[in-house]
């Protein structure tokens, strides 16, 4: 009763905005749009110090404050490999579980997440429990055949690719890739792997995921002296592989078999001793411009050192068009997928994410403090 009288008294002196707060609804849960805005990113926190508790953070790289930046998170176990669909509102996580966390019985599984709810909606068991476990690699988890099939890299230490039909959500089988690793999309329904013999191995699949044809290139990769990095930038169906010493090697993946093309130098001026390197070091934007993370004073073993500049190239002319100095040295670069004003995201050596205007190289902001431990790789959202 006293409450009611007081409330009445206050109302006579105050606006309606100062009325008593109303009870709020319990149980509300936010959802996300089916199509993520162009400047959202997916941050793969491999949690190197706590691998059981890996995460994928959904972040709005345009926002200025942490609460506005963080859109959500979903888990990914044991340094998962991940991908997103552009034709279905889905994201994919290839991961490993044990019945007792760190031990027990192993289950490898491809988990399918709904982009709108960040909930796991289905899973496909990978029955051979031989999934590649190691530092994140976008070519260990490759969509082909208009995103109908996904290829998941296995290494135990024999190498193969698991084939999963994403429309049917069904495991189709395994393609052996003896002596080779990873999968770059190739031709209509195929892939190319990079091999210990210095060659590449291309396979076309039948609709049921079995092998239809295969071909090998000549040996061209001087692994001892100037090896190709294993994560190329893709422009259309051409793969651009940087080498440890600073070349760029083009490989045409438009046909059923890889065709090795031009080799040119990334160093084109006042840049003696500079080399590409890092963890994710070569990408392309929606307009097909190439971005390469680079560090000076290279040496044997510097190929994973942080870069301090990002170099841009026009693949048509094979000329460098810009050098973007980084605010803080970076380990991995990422690009949003919009053509208009793409952002470049750099995982810096303090494990924060520096956001730059990709074309001008202008530093915009740093995204950090969102719970991340080791956000080794970032992907532009689809």
């Amino acid at each position, binding site marked *: 009763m006293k409450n009611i009288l007081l409330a009445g008294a206050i109302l006579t002196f105050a606006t309606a*905005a100062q009325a*008593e*707060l109303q009870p709020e609804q*319990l149980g*509300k849960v936010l959802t996300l749009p089916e199509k993520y805005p162009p400047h959202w990113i997916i941050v793969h926190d491999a949690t190197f110090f706590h691998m059981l508790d890996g995460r994928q953070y959904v972040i709005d790289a345009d926002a200025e404050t942490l609460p506005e930046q963080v859109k*959500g998170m*979903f888990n990914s176990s044991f340094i998962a490999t991940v991908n997103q669909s552009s034709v279905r509102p889905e994201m994919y996580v290839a991961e490993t579980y044990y019945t007792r966390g760190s031990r027990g019985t192993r289950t490898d599984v491809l988990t399918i997440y709904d982009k709108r709810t960040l909930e796991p909606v289905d899973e496909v068991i990978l029955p051979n429990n031989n999934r590649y476990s190691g530092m994140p690699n976008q070519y260990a988890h490759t969509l082909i055949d208009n995103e109908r099939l996904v290829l998941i890299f296995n290494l135990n230490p024999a190498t193969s690719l698991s084939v999963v039909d994403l429309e049917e959500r069904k495991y189709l089988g395994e393609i052996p890739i003896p002596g080779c690793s990873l999968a770059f999309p190739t031709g209509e329904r195929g892939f190319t792997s990079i091999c210990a013999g210095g060659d590449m191995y291309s396979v076309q699949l039948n609709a049921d995921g079995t092998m239809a044809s295969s071909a090998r290139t000549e040996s061209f990769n001087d692994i001892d002296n100037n090896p190709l990095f294993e994560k190329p930038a893709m422009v259309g169906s051409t793969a651009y592989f940087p080498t440890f010493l600073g070349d760029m090697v083009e490989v045409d993946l438009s046909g059923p078999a890889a065709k090795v093309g031009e080799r040119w130098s990334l160093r084109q001026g006042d840049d003696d001793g500079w080399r590409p390197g890092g963890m994710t070091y070569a990408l392309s934007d929606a307009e097909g411009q190439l971005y390469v993370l680079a560090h000076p004073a290279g040496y044997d073993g510097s190929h994973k050192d942080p870069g301090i500049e990002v170099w841009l190239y026009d693949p048509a002319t094979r000329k460098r068009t810009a050098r973007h100095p980084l605010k803080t040295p970076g380990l991995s670069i990422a690009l949003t997928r919009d053509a208009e004003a793409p952002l470049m995201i750099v995982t810096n050596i303090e494990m924060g994410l520096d956001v730059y205007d990709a074309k001008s190289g202008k530093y915009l902001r740093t995204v950090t*403090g969102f719970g991340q431990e080791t956000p080794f790789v970032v992907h532009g959202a689809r």
Partner: protein
Amino acid sequence: MNWLMKQLDRMTESKTRTVAQSTGRRSFMGRLAMTLTGVSALPLLPVARAQQQPGETGDPNSCDYWRYCAIDGFLCGCCGGSMNTCPPGTEMSPMTWLGTCQNPADGKNYIISYNDCCGKTSCGACLCNRNEADRPVYRPQAANDINWCIGTKHLTYNCSTAIVVGTALEQ
């Protein structure tokens, strides 16, 4: 700036001091969050998603916001949710601990329900620990030591909300 705060300041480095001041809290947990993530200053500003009611002031994503007087956990507003909404893919616990917090804008005491959001692992952002009228686990409805992901599909704790469920009775 009370006595303990001064002690802490005296004992610690400038970085820690900045953190303590920016959170405005004595809580070690806020400091902890900073230590662990290596963050020197978080930009924490009100956003539309926070869904404040008319008659509230302050930053709903700051640990010193009035509703958080008895909270212990990650603020859902920093995790993809808001102060009264769970992040995508989590599930709000149907039961939890309650606090009684005074709204500085109207001077009234409100019952705040700190429902946890569950089903994903620790959000990790905006850790906040305040313990007004918190009680040990033997009075569970007032105990923020408990992981309140109870009655949910999973006990996996992600973050905590602070929901107005009523006015407190006059004492």
